[in-house]
């Protein structure tokens, strides 16, 4: 088999002056050969979409090369087209005009272009809707247009960026099957498909190969060959076995948090917090308490109709605060977690506070700073600067929002949004008016 696409030592960094460099992608090597359907899996924020856009030539990597048929690409990759999560149709063009856009610079006479566009529209099951505008169509039909626009150009590689995640369950399944049929029965001349997804099941159902990425920064942590014959049955043991295996790789990768000591800066290192509001965290702990002793993560997600993407950060937060632990794909509450789940509101806050101070250095630091100030107040910007140095300015605001959310919930400190100041409430008068900055 020949290499269609070759990625060599791809690194993507965002750096601005005065900050630590934030590495999104690190040393990614990837080869894609003819006939492969590759799924790229990874937690949210891992840079999957960035990687896909680098393959497409929409983003130029900081270092490394992308080769298409042995030629390094400079601008937009000539051999690809792309299906987008939000469909990215032009709302002012009809279905036919949207599809014809994919043929704009092809060397066909206009009648031929029209014929090909109509044939593709027929193929994706939109016959009769040529003259409709995207806003008249349902989500599933819109994505069919997106697919048609990508396929009409007859690309060698079809890139798909979470193509089914904006659709409801039934519509998504329907479209997955239709696409798979086109692909498996060679109704399209496409030589390879690369799909970014966070649905493990989706990947195992459709792809021949799953490339699993880690986070902060993204590296390839597993490259799994899925040898199951099509059409695959989700209930079969061989299927669930592969799903479980990928689940374990993904959850396990989160346990390898960098240990708290950082020799370079002398102090303790900043631990990035998962984007989970305190309310979701407590709700999840209550749920775990109500359920059996141990729950299979994969089944749990299915039960509460959560995508892996939504569930994993919560699991990570629980682990970070030692409220719950994950082993072998099962999650269970720790003694502290049990204590928390059955505590009263005030007790919970106290427990949470203790956990934060013990486990996450930034809270101890904030408290120390506020305590040592005479007026016990400090602008948000100050802490933002601290966090920015560690995670970069893009993520810093969201990080600080979560820090403030957790801190407020545990009453470690208070925050005034209009003056953007963190402060300590008076011990005897918790409702004292925040003074003007």
């Amino acid at each position, binding site marked *: 088999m020949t290499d269609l696409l070759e990625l060599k030592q791809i690194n993507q960094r965002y750096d601005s002056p005065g900050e630590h460099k934030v590495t999104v992608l690190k040393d990614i090597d990837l080869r894609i050969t003819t006939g492969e359907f590759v799924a790229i899996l990874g937690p949210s924020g891992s840079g999957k979409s960035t990687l896909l*856009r680098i393959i*497409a030539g*929409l983003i130029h990597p900081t270092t490394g090369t992308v080769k298409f048929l042995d030629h390094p690409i400079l601008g*937009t990759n000539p051999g*690809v*087209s*792309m299906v*987008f*999560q*939000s*469909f*990215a*149709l*032009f*709302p*002012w*063009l*009809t279905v036919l*005009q949207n599809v*014809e*856009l*994919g043929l*704009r*610079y092809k*060397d066909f006479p206009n009648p031929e272009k029209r014929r090909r566009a109509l044939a593709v529209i027929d193929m994706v099951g939109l016959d009769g809707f040529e003259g409709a*505008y995207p*806003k*008249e169509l349902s989500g599933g039909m819109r994505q069919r247009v997106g697919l048609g*626009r990508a396929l009409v150009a007859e690309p060698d590689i079809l890139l798909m960026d979470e193509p089914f995640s904006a659709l409801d369950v039934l519509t998504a399944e329907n479209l997955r099957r239709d696409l798979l049929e086109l692909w498996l029965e060679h109704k399209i001349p496409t030589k390879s498909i690369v799909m970014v997804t966070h649905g493990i099941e989706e990947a195992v159902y459709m792809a021949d190969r799953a490339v699993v990425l880690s986070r902060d920064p993204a590296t390839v942590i597993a490259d799994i060959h899925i040898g199951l014959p099509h059409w695959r049955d989700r209930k079969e043991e061989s299927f669930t076995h592969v799903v479980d295996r990928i689940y374990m790789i993904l959850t396990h990768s989160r346990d390898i948090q960098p240990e708290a000591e950082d020799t370079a800066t002398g102090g303790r290192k900043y631990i990035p917090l998962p984007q989970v509001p305190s309310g979701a965290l407590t709700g999840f702990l209550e749920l775990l308490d109500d359920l059996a002793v141990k729950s299979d993560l994969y089944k749990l997600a299915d039960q509460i109709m959560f995508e892996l993407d939504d569930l994993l950060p919560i699991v990570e937060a629980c682990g970070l605060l030692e409220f719950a632990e994950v082993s072998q794909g099962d999650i269970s509450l720790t003694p502290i977690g049990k204590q928390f789940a059955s505590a009263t509101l005030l007790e919970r806050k106290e427990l949470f506070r203790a956990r934060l101070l013990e486990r996450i250095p930034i809270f101890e630091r904030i408290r120390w700073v506020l305590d040592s100030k005479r007026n016990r107040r400090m602008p948000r910007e100050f802490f933002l600067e601290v966090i920015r140095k560690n995670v970069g300015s893009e993520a810093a605001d969201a990080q600080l929002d979560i820090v403030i959310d957790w801190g407020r919930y545990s009453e470690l400190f208070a925050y005034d949004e*209009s003056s953007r100041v963190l402060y300590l409430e008076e011990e005897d008068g918790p409702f004292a008016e925040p003074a003007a900055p």
Partner: protein
Amino acid sequence: MKWPRQRFPLTTKFTWVDAIIALLVFALLYALVTLGSGMDVHFSDVDQPVIHLDWWLLPYYAGRSLLRMFIAFFFSLLFTFVYARFAAIHRRAEKIMIPLLDILQSVPVLGFLSVTVTAFMGLFPHRLLGLELASIFAIFTGQVWNMTFSLYYSITNLPRELQDAAAISRLDSYSRFTHLELPYAAIGLVWNSMMSFGGGWFFLAASESISVLNHHIQLPGIGSYMATAMQQGNIPALLEAMSTMVVMIVVVDQLFWRPLVVWAQRFKLDTHADDPIESWFLKFLHRSRLALWISEHIFGSMLRAIDSTVVNFVKSSRHKQTHSSITPHSSAWKPWLSRGVALLGILLVFYYGFQGTVEIAKLGWPQIFHVIILGVFTLTRVMSSTVLALLWTVPVGVAIGLHPRASRITQPLVQIAASFPANMVFPLVTLVYLELHVNFQIGSLFLMMLGTQWYILFNVIAGAQAIPSDLKEATRVLGLRGWERWRRLLLPALFPYIVTGCITASGGAWNASIIAELVTWKQQTLVATGLGAYITQVTTLGDWPAIVLSIVVMAAFVTTVNRIVWRPLQKVAEKRFRII
């Protein structure tokens, strides 16, 4: 946009609708020729166009004015396309172009009317075309900045995935503009154009009849008609001109803007349809085979021809690129070209900046100080006129906005009032002032208010309409009444709208001050102490250093007030009072 071949309805017979459309097209072409031919006639000091106050000449004068408006609008659109697109695409240019736009929009247009008139007259000596162009230029500068900002913000806010989709399809910049950027910006641009066009009438009325360098020059048009009526103290002619103006605003709205706004709805991103807007004229056009034929075979094929030419050009140039291994030559000299242009620009700025400073320096410090004090006077008037307008527009606007029926009736009226050039009412008010011996230091403040208050009213009505009904119900359930209701619900909810209205209003008031602080009726002149009156006086005298100084001072005042007062308020409005 793609310009598809439309299928015609199956009937083949011409209807009365087609007859009317044919007549319309013919009349439009004839009017353009007649009105246009009057634009470039000979003129000299002795041989000046005379404005006759016969009522039956009004349609002709109105037509001349309208032609000016549309020419100015066309150039505004052209400028917008080029400037906004360039600024949105080129990062480095953006850093200079957007702040520059911000300053340009605070330069009082009427202040440098004298400059442009002399310049254009120099270009076309002894011909009316120079004056014509100066007037068009004044209208242009009155409407263009808003439109440019609108397009610029739309392009920079394009959703990421749509941009990616365009890049994957490898769209060239022309196709990207026509298929993606322009359609995406269309709704905002049409609304902004409509507003700017409405504001343009004010500059039209002010620029047709001007005194500059000791000459009084009049262009045939409705504004000059008005000015002549004012000089002669002819009240019936004055009223006739005002009614013509109202008719003209309504007609342009119904036949041009309304259909355009309705048509632009097709560029909406989402499906949800609130209150479908309708246009009888657009429906009428849709019923006509002739109109369809014209749009298909004249405009449609023209655009298709451009489209295919561009596509073919791009195709062939891409072929060349892939077939030749050498990098194209253009990339070698391109950076030098842009550097050269930048250097030239810097040199020009320095040269003229230096000359301007020398001019102003001739005046000496006392004079400069005097002009700044005058600026403070005008600033006080601008601010008081805005506050005074707030006092009545907020309660009235809320009363209208909270009652759907009342707002349906009044909104078009307010729109007309906002478009109506306030300077056309000045003479009547002046007459009243003269009769009642009103103190003009305060009286001029009301003249400024005349034009600008409508923007606030307009925004307050829109704000009151936008208050979610569950908030209104919650207020009722909580039993909040009277002042509490204002404090807890209405004022916070209206705040962003009030700020927007005030920004537009005060911007307009600065421009209005130039003609509102000095008015005449027959031979009597009323003057208020202020920068506006000063600009009018030095313009009439042709005192160059003073003209330059006063314009600079006014622009500085406007920019400073924007930065110190309005921007922070706007930020507060966005952060704290936005209803999610």
